Every structure is written in C-alpha cells, then in structure tokens.
C-alpha cells in the first residue's frame, strides 16, 4: 500500500535561507517508511497471549528535505510524528521502507558505523526538565558528545564548549552549575548547545518549545533561526502548534494516523490548502485578537492507531466525505446518514442501546414511530430526503433497528451507503509542482 512518492527532481524552488552549494541539494530522502509496534511485551505473554495487535504508528511516509531547508511535520497526538522523528534517527527499528541521509542508507549506516551517522544528525528534545542528566554540570553535559567522539584534547573540547554556550545565549560562568538550578528556557538552550557539539548537518527538533512559556518560547524560536544560518543546518521540526510551524518552516507535512495527507510549501499549505483535515486544523486554531470568527468543529473522537479506518483514514470525521454515486443528496443530509451508518457499523449504536437511550428520554420503548423520530432527531436526519432511493434504504434500516434486528439494520446500511472515501486509499494529487494532497475529493476535482 506504500506508494512511492516520486518528487520531481532538480532543485525544488530556491531553499529559503542557504545558498545552493555544490553538493546535491537533497540532504534526506524518506521513501515508504513504516513503523509498526507489536503489542505483546515479555516472553511469558507471548506464550499465553493469542492476539498480536499491531499499532501502525507510521504507515508508509515519503518525503525529502533539501540542504538548509526547514521541513515541519504537524499533526495531532497519535498521528505518529514523534515516532517518525525517532525512527529517522535510528532510535526505533523501521518495519519497512528506506531512509537515506546524504545519499547513504541510514539503517545500514547505523549498523556499520553508528558514530559516523551521529556526527551527521542530532536531536533536540521536548521536555527541558528530563533531557539533561541532573547529576552532571552543564560543562560536562555539553562536552560529553565531544568526549564520546574524542574530538581533540580536553582543553580543545572546553574551548568548543565555551564557544557553544555563548552561541546559545548563556554565560560561561553558568557552566559549572547543575541543570536543576536553571529555568526551562535555559535548559533547552543547553540541549541545543549539546546537539551542535558534533556540528551535524541535520537537526531533528521534537516539539522544542511546547513545554515552555510564551515569552521563553519566543527566545528559543529566534535562537533556532540564528543557529540555522550560522551553522548551515537543515531542520526537521515536529510540532502540534501551527503558529510555530508557520514561523519557522519553509515546507510542511500534515500527518494523520500514521500517513502524510498533505505536503508542500508552508505558504501554499496554510493559504490554499485543499485537504479537509488541514482545513479543519487551521479553522480550529483560535485566532489571537480576532473576535467575530464562527468556529465550526469536527467530530472530536480520534480513532486509535491500533485499527485505523479503511481507505482514507479521515473519512470517519471528514465534513466533505463523498456520498456514494447515484444519490442526489445535499451534503448535510448525506453527512447525518453517514454518521448514523458509522455508529451502527462500529457497534456504537445497537437496538439495546437505542432502547436504553429512549427509556432515558422517557419514550415508550415499543412505540416504533416515536423511536424512529427520536433516531432521526438525534442524527439530524430530516423526515423526507431529496433522493427517494436513499430514503427507502434508510427507512428499511431504521425500521429494522427499531424492531430490534441490529444486524439487518447494519447490512442494509453497509450495502447501500458506502462512500468511495471508505473503499480505496486516495492516490497522490499534485495541485502544484511541490504541493501534494492525498484526498479523493481533490483528485476528482482536478480530473
């Protein structure tokens, strides 16, 4: 199912900051990367645990980053962005797919020459209170990578440390203090100084400022901008904060349940997005200082990555889900029918539960008519639909459910109300040379 995304070669637009130097502009290429977790810890449990559930944290992700560029990865918790970042650095074993840094296969590079690889790519962590060893002084923390790679003698290392600590905006006399004596922002600066110690080409930042206060976050964001230019760094920034992504990133990838649903230049994705999920994300961010916005919400229940929905994984929450062919229905009517179908299919709605709800709303359980109207009301389905065939199928299902046969109600709905978004995985549609979207709706509109 992993479609190999072949990005158009050649320089992808002038990277924002650094000058195009001789070596190839592409630094990192990821193709069809997958990372699945088996859900069974320990020896004994394998003996007695039969079902081996697989959590598909990263499920076929492909993209590339050019030298000096900042690619942002945004998405909600459970979308796999953090797992992606850690798999890229070899902290997790990839289940499938390939990652290449400066043209060399990362997985193989780590097996053969781990230290060589770590000289190229480094990591900045989210939680400032847990990314520094509490028992070491700042000098020892920042010098440690230099010691491990025995870069020069002790005094040469100390010189580098002192220079690094000034670069990240701390003073040299703080070097002999312990992390416990510093504020969150200062500790994050030490983390950055440490990552710069090995002079890497790629810096992966996992939510670098989400644990910090607003004013401290601003200091760190500006610091990151400065060091990117000064150390000629390429960034991969993981964040759930769209304003941070907009501020720092040249390009951005939007992830949902282990897949990249949209990738492109930040400007294009933020201003002319075509993917319903990205639109929903952008619309739910409360605007500072804007007061007349009508915020509309999508279904807040995020499916679990253990068994993601089939086809386009966003179809269970997508306001623009495509109705089945052959029905002429306004989108709102179709959406309420679809929600009813999903509830029945997933078992959230059964005859017993309906009776229970009816009882709680003081309805007579055997009065079928009352129950049907109650059902229609709770899903916002109007009494008469514009499309007669849809109307009859729906009525059959409702009557079956009200009469207590949940199974017949389910078969009827599953058979007649299948959205294309459920059946096939959306192919890639390039709505601009470097702006791709995985969405059936967009695919159809560009044909």
């Amino acid at each position, binding site marked *: 199912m992993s479609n190999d995304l072949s990005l158009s070669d050649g320089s992808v637009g002038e990277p924002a900051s650094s000058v195009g130097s001789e070596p190839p502009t592409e630094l990192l290429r990821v193709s069809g990367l997958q990372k699945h977790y088996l859900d069974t810890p320990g020896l004994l449990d394998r003996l007695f645990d039969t079902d081996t559930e697989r959590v598909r944290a990263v499920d076929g992700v492909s993209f590339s980053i050019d030298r000096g560029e900042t690619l942002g990865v945004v998405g909600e918790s459970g979308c796999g962005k953090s797992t992606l970042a850690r798999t890229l650095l070899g902290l997790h074993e990839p289940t499938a797919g390939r990652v290449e840094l400066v043209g060399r296969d990362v997985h193989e590079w780590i097996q053969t020459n781990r230290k060589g690889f770590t000289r190229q790519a480094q990591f900045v962590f989210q939680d400032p209170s847990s990314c520094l060893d509490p028992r070491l002084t700042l000098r020892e923390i920042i010098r440690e990578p230099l010691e491990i790679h025995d870069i020069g003698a002790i005094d040469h290392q100390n010189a580098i440390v002192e220079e690094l600590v000034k670069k990240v905006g701390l003073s040299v006399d703080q070097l002999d203090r312990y992390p416990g004596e510093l504020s969150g922002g200062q500790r994050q600066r030490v983390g950055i100084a440490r990552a710069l110690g090995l002079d890497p080409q790629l810096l992966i930042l996992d939510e670098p400022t989400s644990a910090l206060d607003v004013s401290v976050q601003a200091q760190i964001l500006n610091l990151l901008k400065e060091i990117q230019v000064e150390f000629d760094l390429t960034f991969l920034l993981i964040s759930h904060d769209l304003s941070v992504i907009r501020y720092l990133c040249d390009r951005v990838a939007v992830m949902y349940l282990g897949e990249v649903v949209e990738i492109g230049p930040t400007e294009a994705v933020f201003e002319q997005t075509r993917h319903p999920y990205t639109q929903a994300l952008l619309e739910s961010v409360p*605007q500072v200082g804007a007061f007349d916005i009508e915020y509309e919400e999508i279904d807040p229940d995020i499916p679990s990555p253990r068994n993601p929905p089939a086809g386009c994984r966003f179809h269970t929450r997508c306001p623009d889900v495509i109705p089945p062919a052959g029905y002429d229905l306004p989108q709102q009517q179709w959406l309420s029918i679809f929600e009813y179908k999903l509830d029945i299919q997933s078992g959230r709605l059964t005859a017993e*539960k309906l009776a229970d709800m009816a009882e709680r709303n003081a309805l007579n359980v055997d009065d079928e008519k009352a129950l049907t109207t109650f059902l229609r009301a709770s899903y916002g389905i109007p009494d008469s639909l514009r499309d007669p065939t849809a109307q009859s199928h729906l009525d059959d299902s409702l009557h079956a459910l009200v009469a207590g046969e949940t199974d017949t109600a389910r078969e009827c709905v599953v058979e007649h109300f299948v959205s294309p978004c459920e059946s096939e995985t959306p192919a890639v549609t390039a709505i601009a040379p470097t702006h791709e979207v995985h969405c059936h709706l967009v695919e159809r509109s560009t044909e």
Partner: protein
Amino acid sequence: MAGTADLLRIRGLSTQFVTEEGQINAVNDISLTIGQGEIVSIVGESGSGKSVTGRSLMDLIEPPGTIVAGEIWYRSSELAATVDDETAVDGEYVDLRALPPAVRQSLRGTAFSIIFQDPGSSFNSSLTVGRQIAEAVEANRRIKAGQSYGTLDLLRDIVTPNRSFVSEESYDRAVELLERVDIPDPANRAEEYPHQFSGGMLQRAMIAQALAADPTFLVADEPTTGLDVTIQSGIMGLLEELQRDLDMSILLITHNLGVVSRLADRTAVMYAGELFEVGPTEKVLNEPANPYTKGLLNSLPDVTDPSAQIEPITGNVPSLLDHEMPVGCSFADRCPAATDDCRSAPPPVRPVNGDATHRVACVHAGSDGGEHLTEPVGSGPTVTDIEVPTGVSNE
C-alpha cells in the same frame, strides 16, 4: 456583554505559601469583578499565580498554603438572608471568607464548581467515571437538602453492602450529564474507568461532573492545555454552549491568548502574583497598555502572518519569595520602558484612553491625565464605585 450585576467581587485577595526558602506570595492583593453570565479570563505564564487565585476562590488551598487576606463578595440574596453577621453582608452581597467554614464548604460543588487541566490526575483511577459523577450529583443533592454526611453514615454504608452513597437517580443523572457533554454511547462509557478515556473525552467527563448541580460560577483552570487543536476547539465550543444555556459565569485560567480571544468577554493579565491590566478582551488584546501585555503579544508567532518578527521578553520570571520581591513594579527589570519611578513605588492604577472599564497598573501607561483610580485594577465594568465596607486601596 457587561454583566447586568456583578456575581463576584474579589477585593485584596492574598494567598501565601510557607516553604523552607521563605514565604512565597503566590497571590498578592488581587481584586477582580466577575459579572453574572460573564466569562472573565486570567492570562499569565507559569509562576504568575493564576492557578492559586482560582483555587483560593474555591477555598481549596491546603497547608503549607493559606489565604491571608481579602474578601470575596458573592451576590446571592437567599444566602445573604441566612447570614446574621452584619460585617459579612452588604445588601445582596455576602463575604464568603467571613462565613463559617461549614457554610463556605457547602457552596463547593453547588454554587461553585472547578475543572482542572489534567483530567487524568483529577479522577480517582479506581472508580468508574459514571460512579464519580454520580457521587458529585448525590453530594450536591444532599447539601441542597441540608443533609450532612458524617462518619456514622459512612460506617452504615460500608456495613450494609447494598446501601451505597450513590442513589439510582443520581447515577441516571450522571449518564444524562455525559450525554449532555456529547460523549458518545454514554451508558457504556459511564461504566468504564478513567484510564480507558482519551484526553479530550475525559475533559468532557470532568465538565459533566462540574455541571452536577448546575453551578452559577465555574473555575476552569487551563481546561484546554495539552489537548490537540481539534479537541481543544470542541471543548471551547462546549464551554460556550454551556455558558449560554445555563447563564453561568466562568473564570477561565489559561496562558493561551487564542483561547482567551475566542471565549473571554473580559481579560485580566497576571504577572508575579499581581494584576497588571484588566479590561474587555478586545481592548486588552488589540490596544494593550501594559508593557508586559505588549511583550506577551509580541512574542507570539502569528499564524496568519509569518513574516511578522517576534520579540521575546528578555530575562526570567522573578521568584515570588517575599524577601526578594521588589518595592516597585515586579516587571521593572525586564521592562523596556522601565524608569526609576517604576522601581520606587508600586504602579498606580489608571484607565486606558479614559475608559474606566479598561484599567492598567503602570506608571507609563493609561491616559496621561494623571487621573488615579482608587478602585483596584481588577474592578468591574461599572464605573460608579460601589461603597465597599472595608476601605480597600491598592497600596
């Protein structure tokens, strides 16, 4: 939406913590007015004391913390009727802190409710969610019916297994509340344990629990922090809807200026235990007067305009240790506009551009007519100064 009448008038509230390093002034002489059916937000960074303010209102401060000063005037005519202590009553308003502890505690969960930032640690992990909400419903029903529940009642409940604190009706009411906050399949979810809920769903369950006795006043302590964008938006929508339907006043405590823009009618900016600026949210965010508020706004990356450069506030939040607190304005050594008179005396309170509902505590801010307001910065929108029984000034 200026409240027709104020529900709560907080005057000179101070809460301190005694620690080894010394006395911490978490909340330092706070005055704030909350109108009926109004959403007032306290915005501030960590360490500003905003959470402590919320908990002080709910009388949830436990040793080593104590509320050392301040009055909390709560408008409730039927409560005022029951209080015989003259100094504690002023017309319809009752000073909660002058009430006997038993009466004050009876307001918790009935007139006042609170929801917390991390629902995972605010629910008891060994009881089902339905049961815990039912307990809240039952507790309020008994308080309103004036029944007390002592150790003897507890022993009787333990001894007779079928008898339990929670009655059948309150359990059904709990399931209804879960349905009210749009949790799908509420009957089954009520029987599940907190660790089986997602973050967003558990936060909704906590809101359901707070509605157990349809309170008049809700303290929401960082209700959306740590939630994903779409779930956060759902929670904000739910709060808006509940506030409209139940005409409930909400004290929204957060560090997120976006959440404030969407929800809050009025906003108070808090720093190092003091209020720096209070006013209608539109005014405070679009015409910020206090340098700290300006600093906060400038350090926010703007999602709509990436090219806008952000200027961080230099330095760090001061420790709130009593012996280290500066005489003058506590933001002086980080403030770009600081001068000597900032450091010599506490900042005066002045209206901004002549509008008394938008006040600022800063020497260099506010209308330069030098017009000092006697009322503290957090006073309410009504310009006419009400006669406050005990003389309160900002010094």
